[in-house]
């Protein structure tokens, strides 16, 4: 009997120490854990910025980790399991609607909202807004595309019109890299001739009604304009991407390419003194001359509503998108700032790529509230134009098919 009591006591003592040590463990680690996702190329910068954030808030203990997730992949990675996603992550504003739908992004209000509204350009804040609610801390205003060219091949006058570019490149046996088979670039041609889309949403942000005028007269003109480029011997062909552009400028095969600021450094390195950038050219169809349009977008930091430290996550996102950090991001990676003060810096103004994207953005269409089934049909149509599967007699038929698909959303 005595033995049993002793063993019971021993067990009890063990249990108490176990509990106490468990409690001690949780008490020891009182640091605030936050995760940030950003583009692969900017990981080191993000880590530095996290250190600066810690230094700026010495009263609290932070444990910030950094992960890789490109701004274009934010929805794909966050929607898998929003509760396991990062507390703060960068996203490009075309993904906003889907991020809202999957509950992956928190609304911003109060002093944070006032701050971003006063610091950043109106358009950049607008890009993170849906139904008057703001969901993102803008930090980059350069998510658009424009033209890079080889100054030894083309003059500034040549690059002002598409016809000029084509004739010079044809005569000098050089290629034009233009991703007509990538809907982000294809759509610009349609916008040029007044094609539009608009989406009405239900309360749960499913699509109520999609309007799209891509099969109107403008669509025909856009098709003709694209065919003018793609049927030329100077057109580089399908599959133009970052790699083919950089290597194409390197070998001297390419004289012109349409892409964004993210390739600026690499292209500058290849072209050296002949590095030239400008807005997209004009194009003449049926005697009507138009400035080519494009998509423009912004990059923003979103805060995950599942975050265990939601208030701290907002604080971090606000810090990462602040004026100082935008300046640093520009100096290190050439990212065009959305912050008014940072954008007015002399260095920013002197950067030709940023100047070109700013110039092109005047003719660009805001990339938000895009119909959910937009990208694939437009991409397919671009492919049809390149492959010459369709011509003047069949444009209308296939534009109708494309528009039909854009308008339809099987879930609604």
């Amino acid at each position, binding site marked *: 009997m005595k033995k049993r009591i002793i063993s019971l006591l021993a067990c009890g003592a063990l249990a108490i120490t176990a509990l106490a040590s468990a409690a001690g463990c949780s008490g020891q680690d009182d640091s605030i854990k936050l995760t940030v996702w950003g583009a692969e190329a900017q990981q080191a910068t993000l880590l530095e910025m996290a250190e600066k954030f810690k230094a700026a808030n010495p009263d609290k203990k932070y444990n910030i980790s950094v992960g890789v997730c490109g701004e274009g992949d934010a929805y794909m990675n966050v929607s898998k399991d929003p509760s396991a996603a990062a507390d703060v992550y960068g996203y490009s504003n075309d993904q906003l609607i*889907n991020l809202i739908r999957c*509950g992956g992004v928190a609304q911003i209000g109060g002093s944070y909202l006032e701050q971003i509204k006063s610091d950043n350009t109106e358009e950049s804040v607008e890009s993170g807004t849906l139904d008057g609610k703001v969901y993102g801390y803008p930090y980059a205003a350069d998510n658009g595309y424009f033209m890079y060219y080889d100054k030894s091949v083309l003059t500034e006058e040549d690059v002002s019109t598409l016809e000029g570019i084509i004739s010079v490149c044809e005569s000098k046996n050089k290629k034009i890299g233009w991703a007509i088979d990538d809907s982000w670039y294809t759509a610009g041609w349609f916008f040029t001739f007044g094609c539009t889309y608009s989406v009405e949403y239900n309360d749960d942000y499913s699509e109520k009604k999609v309007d799209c005028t891509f099969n109107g007269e403008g669509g025909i003109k856009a098709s003709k304009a694209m065919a003018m480029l793609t049927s030329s011997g100077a057109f*580089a062909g399908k599959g*133009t991407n970052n790699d083919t552009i950089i290597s194409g400028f390197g070998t001297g095969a390419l004289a012109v390419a349409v892409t964004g600021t993210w390739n600026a450094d690499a292209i500058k390195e290849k072209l050296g003194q002949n590095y030239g950038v400008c807005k997209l050219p004009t194009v003449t169809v049926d005697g009507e001359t138009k400035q080519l349009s494009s998509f423009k977008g912004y990059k923003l930091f979103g805060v995950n*509503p599942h975050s265990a430290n939601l208030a701290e996550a907002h604080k971090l996102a606000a810090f990462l998108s602040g004026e100082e950090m935008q300046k640093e991001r520009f100096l290190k990676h050439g990212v065009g700032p959305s912050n008014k003060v940072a954008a007015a810096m002399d260095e920013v103004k002197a950067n030709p790529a940023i100047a070109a994207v700013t110039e092109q953005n005047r003719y660009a269409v805001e990339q938000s509230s895009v119909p959910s089934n937009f990208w694939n049909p437009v991409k397919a149509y671009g492919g049809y134009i390149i492959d010459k599967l369709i011509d003047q007699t069949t444009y209308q038929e296939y534009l109708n098919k494309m528009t*039909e698909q854009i308008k339809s*959303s099987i879930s*609604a």
Partner: protein
Amino acid sequence: MVDLEYLKMSAPQKFVYRTKAFFKRLPRSIASFFAALPKKLYGCLMAFLSVFTNIGSAAKNGTWRTRISFVAMGTGLIALKQYLRGILYLLFEVLFALYMVFFGWKYLAKLGSLGEVACVEEWDDALGIFTYKFYDNSLLILLYSLMTIFIIVAFIYMWYRNVTGCYECEKVREAGLKLTGTKEELRSYTDRNYHKTLLSVPMLGIVVFTVLPIFFMIFIAFTNYDKAHMPPKELFSWVGAENFVNVLGGGISANSKVFAYTFREVLLWTVVWAFFATFTNYILGMVVAILINKKGVRCKKLYRTVLVMTIAVPQFVSLMLMSQLLADQGLLNNLMISWGWIDKPIPFLTDGTAAKITIIIVNLWIGIPFSMLICTGILMNIPEDLYESARIDGAGPVTAYMKITLPYMLHVTTPYLITQFIGNLNNFNVIFLLTGGEPLSLEMQYAGKTDLLITWLYKLTVNESQYGLASVIGIFTFIVVAVFSLIFYNRSKSVKNEEELM
């Protein structure tokens, strides 16, 4: 027709005869299946009813020990000094009750609606931010409800075993025999019941990781789980067979027609691809093996080694290389343009038909070494005297191949062919890494001209978040794969006449 007449026929005639016979037999075999159905169903019903008669007789004839087991599992066995089983049953019942009260019931109750409130957004003035509270998550409700149903079924089975087990023990004791003790019982699991010990873990794994997800996916096919209904922000709900109707083209929207067309096109290409990918590899692999095996060929080992080297390179590396090489602005096209052979790039991977042919040819690169390896081994096993006697009878090499080599090979490798065919139906790597399903088509939705069912499924889930529709496609893919494998397997020679070789 007698055997002799059949044997006299030429190969094409035989084929026609067999095909005719198959279709002639078909109505009869279907009829016989349905004729046997009532009997089989009756058998099932009887087996099912016997469960109740067993319980009934246990209730009627059992003593208080059995009857108490109806309520408190295992107590009857404990009273019979069957401690191990008794305690385990009791423990199971207690755990089950706790699980149901604290966990299972919450979810099961919401299975009908899949939740009412998903997420609430509130302004928190103190923190200066919007805060979020997440309540019902349709996905978790569905998953945990399903799990609970599985556990309830397991519980009912255990309860039945407990009642009948107790009754059996009582009968044994009434007959004056000794019951097995705890020690003996334990020992039996290393002896008489050893299969149970071995199979328990794999079975549990299959139920948890295969059966449960399959049921889960089947249930998802009946919901509107898509981009606009993503838990935890939004709830999804039951929509009946709507997704099936949409995939099969019966939906009201024009989109449903497009989707149904896509499904047909993708299915057709999947079957065509699987057929060509399997048989081109098989036949060419065999030809290569025969060439190397031929008498008088030198450096046999060298050739074999060179071919096997391609296996050593990871498949996705060679595929990525090929897709870079054959791209419109890839190495091959650029070289040919710079040599002046062509003006415009050849659309190896960007034209619908050309891409299909390219994929099948590139697949040869990956598949031939494997089939060559397998064929080499079997070829060496064919007795040489068969060929010798064929030669004496005046057979040429073609006849010898058709009459000796091919039948022998087919007999041995049919299971290999079947697995290859099934594997190719679901061959994700080759398509995804070479073309990614492209070029896209305006007639199809979310799919390109070279998409297989499996890559289309990937796009529907990963890119488009159309989980409901994707589950339907998944179910159809399963049906296609099951039908093909069953037909081939049942009609293959290695199953039909196992004893007679050739």
